[in-house]
């Protein structure tokens, strides 16, 4: 009957509603410890700051214990609570700046679950923000009595109050959508929209680590990133960008001078981005991505409060992802759809569009790093005969086996894909030596030629391979880059794939079961072929074909009449 993974969002919503309505710091703290203990069904909740317990419930009012201070410092995993016995301890950082820490203690044998750790973190963040905003308001109040510029400060005070209200309203909306089981995409969109609105930055992106390839982050929700830019940024290496750094280092990262920061994403640099900030997003305690805001304003500085605000939104993303049903929905709605759209259903390999995407990314990186990228085009010899004589099921088994063998033989950084039928392709990223690729292609030829045992029947199949190097056609890339702008890499990717295809056809012509490299001679032939194709197409358009002979056949006798 209960819905695990679900009550925590509701509890956070209730906690926020109560704590945010507190009129000053003291009442906020008192309400926070009480409501947080209720949410976690814990006997004890306390806030420890500066080596002092500043608020607590669970101990008799006049008998608080120093064990809480030790627990807050991480020196204890269990404390004794009168009336409840030995209690497991959970802590969560309220405010890194002040060192305030939430400490919980609960009796019984069950330790705190991941979901509860997430909830505690969320409540700590909400409390931290509330306390910070109270402090700001207090400061403003203090200034107001001292300063002569009363009107100005009153305006500032109102601004701070307004911001606080807006933040809490926003977070509240997000929590409501989480607890109301809104689709995960819309929750994440609400988070990016909320961060954009409150921090006032034009660009916001939420990236999650690619489940199939943890070296990459995938953009799942964004504000202000235009289509063309988004295409190139949909999948970025975790080692790059402010978001990658936040995810790798599991902390808030601020890049005040984006243009001159190492690791900045080139697409953003060329887009004129000036400052960016990112906070890690977690699922079940593990970093799974990051939330990034960025600005084109060279004077943009991110204050500590703004860093807290970003963290609060990132925590909410974590909370949404923690929700078990949300994760399922995510996998269903986003992951599977993405996977289906980008992978071949028979072999599970990336399909043509994903291969092109990865190839385009590899080309973009190669361009920056002066590395080479190569494509190996693999076409099985006489596969149609296998299909026709042994049946489609056996044919499918052959394709699965080929996929498996290819994946085993390539380097981890290479991408194996299936383009269609019996056509496979290997994208070799980051090549420093031509010999590497030749060697890999030879091994592919060898492992594919090994006999396959299919239900007791031995099948031998060979392949024709074509290799094309990006370095061999750099000029083409440059040319396309000048002509095509944002789509340059995609066109270059298609060109490279075509070149490898042409080389493979040459291998077929020369007797199959061999390997050919796309070279100058082939380029000439390709150009001729393209010219012929072009001429033929133009000829059709211009009605230049003339009928010379047309026989008439009797359908009954089959004779020419």
């Amino acid at each position, binding site marked *: 009957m209960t819905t695990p993974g679900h009550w925590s969002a509701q509890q956070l919503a209730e906690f926020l509603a109560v704590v945010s309505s507190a009129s000053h710091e003291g009442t906020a703290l008192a309400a926070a410890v009480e409501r947080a203990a209720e949410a976690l069904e814990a006997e004890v909740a306390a806030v420890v700051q500066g080596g002092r317990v500043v608020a607590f419930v669970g101990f008799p*009012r006049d008998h608080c214990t120093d064990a809480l201070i030790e627990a807050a410092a991480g020196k204890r995993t269990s404390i004794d609570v009168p009336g*409840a016995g030995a209690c497991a301890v959970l802590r969560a950082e309220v405010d890194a700046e002040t060192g305030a820490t939430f400490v919980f203690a609960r009796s019984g044998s069950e330790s705190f679950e991941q979901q509860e750790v997430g909830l505690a973190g969320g409540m700590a963040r909400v409390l931290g923000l509330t306390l910070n905003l109270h402090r700001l308001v207090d400061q403003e109040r203090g200034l107001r009595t001292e300063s002569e510029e009363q009107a100005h400060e009153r305006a500032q005070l109102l601004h701070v109050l307004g911001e606080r209200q807006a933040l809490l309203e926003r977070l509240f909306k997000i929590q409501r959508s989480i607890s109301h089981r809104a689709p995960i995409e819309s929750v994440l969109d609400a988070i990016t929209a909320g961060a954009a609105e409150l921090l006032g930055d034009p660009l916001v992106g939420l990236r999650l680590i690619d489940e199939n390839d943890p070296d990459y982050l995938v953009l799942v929700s964004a504000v202000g990133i235009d289509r063309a830019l988004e295409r190139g940024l949909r999948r970025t290496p975790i080692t790059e960008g402010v978001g990658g750094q936040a995810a790798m280092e599991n902390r808030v990262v601020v890049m005040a001078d984006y243009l001159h920061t190492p690791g900045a994403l080139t697409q953003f640099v060329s887009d004129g981005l000036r400052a960016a900030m990112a906070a890690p997003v977690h699922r079940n305690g593990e970093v799974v991505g990051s939330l990034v805001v960025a600005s084109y304003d060279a004077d943009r500085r991110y204050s500590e409060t703004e860093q807290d605000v970003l963290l609060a939104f990132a925590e909410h993303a974590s909370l949404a992802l923690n929700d078990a049903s949300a994760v399922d929905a995510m996998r269903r709605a986003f992951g599977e759809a993405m996977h289906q759209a980008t992978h071949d259903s028979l072999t599970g390999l990336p399909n043509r569009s994903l291969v092109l995407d990865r190839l385009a990314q590899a080309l973009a990186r190669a361009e920056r790093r002066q590395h080479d990228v190569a494509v190996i085009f693999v076409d099985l010899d006489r596969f149609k005969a296998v299909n026709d004589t042994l049946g489609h099921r056996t044919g499918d088994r052959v394709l699965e086996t080929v996929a498996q063998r290819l994946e085993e033989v390539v380097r981890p950084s290479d991408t194996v894909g299936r383009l269609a039928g019996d056509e496979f392709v290997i994208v070799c990223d980051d090549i420093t030596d031509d010999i590497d690729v030749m060697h890999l292609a030879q091994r592919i030829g060898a492992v594919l030629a090994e006999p396959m045992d299919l239900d007791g029947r031995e099948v031998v199949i060979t392949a024709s391979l074509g290799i094309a190097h990006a370095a061999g056609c750099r000029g083409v890339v440059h040319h396309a880059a000048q002509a095509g702008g944002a789509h340059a890499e995609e066109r270059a990717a298609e060109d490279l794939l075509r070149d490898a295809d042409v080389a493979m056809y040459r291998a077929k012509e020369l007797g199959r079961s061999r390997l050919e490299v796309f070279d100058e001679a082939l380029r000439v032939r390709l150009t001729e072929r393209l010219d012929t194709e072009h001429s033929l197409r133009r000829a059709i358009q211009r009605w230049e074909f003339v009928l010379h002979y047309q026989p008439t056949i009797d359908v009954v006798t089959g004779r020419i009449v």
Partner: protein
Amino acid sequence: MGAAVAGDDAKLLLVFCSDDYDVPVLLDAIRGGAPGVPLIGCSTAGEIGVDGAGDQSVVVLALGGPGFSVATAWADGSDGDLRRAAEEVSACVAEVESRANQVLLLLSDGLGGDQQEIVRGAYAVLGAQVPLVGGCAGDGLKMTGTLQFHDGDVRSGAVVAAAISSDGPIGIGVRHGWRRVGEPLLVSESESNRVYLLNGEPALDVYLRCLGAPAEAHTDAAAFTHFAMTHPLGLSRRSGEEVRYVAEADFERRSLVCIAEVPKGGLAWFMEGDEHSVLEASDEACGDALATLGGAPPLGFVAFDCIARRGVLGDDGIATEVERIASHANGAPVAGFYTYGEIARTRGVSGFHNQTLVVLALA
């Protein structure tokens, strides 16, 4: 008058009676039989005694014997500050003799605001050290005013308490027996114990429609209260749902008035029960209370049973229920009343309940 004052070692008198009595006169008579013994009690929505359940009756339970100490207190909460009142009465725990086991018994005015604040106030003072138990006084469903008794004084809007310490074990059992109906609803707008919007719609309209309430409940306050008694709200919690009694309808503002806070932004379910599920919960509550006694025979049971459960069971059903409770007590006296809200905190921090049965077993 129910259970008599047995022996001369009484330490506490518990009195539960209908508010139709001339209570000051009644209390004088009871106290005359046990001079100097502290007394707490309240008016009810029905009484539970050794002879079964009844209306317009009086139940008196005397607790005492060696190895048993009591201190009592009362505080005014008629200004609505129930937390402060609870903090005040909780101070009596410091006055009771220290023994192995203790409990604070609280009786309050069920019509006096957010009763959860009573548990919060007591917990703030006592922490996890002292279990809390008790109930909210009733007025036979007239919903006009309830009474709390402390020694010879009769008040309204008060919190009365007895701190009990005992060498023997003290057991507390809490169960409800309601189940969810339909889909979860979002509490889109609420304030304290008033629910204005559910799923963005006026709460009263959603409630009446989703539960298929009878026509008269749409317009008549009494008919609504009668229907609502067996159709509480359940709030989503870590260990299941927390039940909220819907006390009345605000036909003007199309809102629901509950007995305790229903936080905005939370999820809620409508709930219902039947005789079987409610009686099963009675057995389980008694079983839980006895389990804490660790095999020691109970010397007495005090039952705080929600009026709404009575609504489901009917007159025959409550007779069965009290019989069952008595059979668990195994000959020990049983006293209690039908309440407007129940208190039981043994683990964690929360302890205000609705639509439940709370059983206190002393050994």
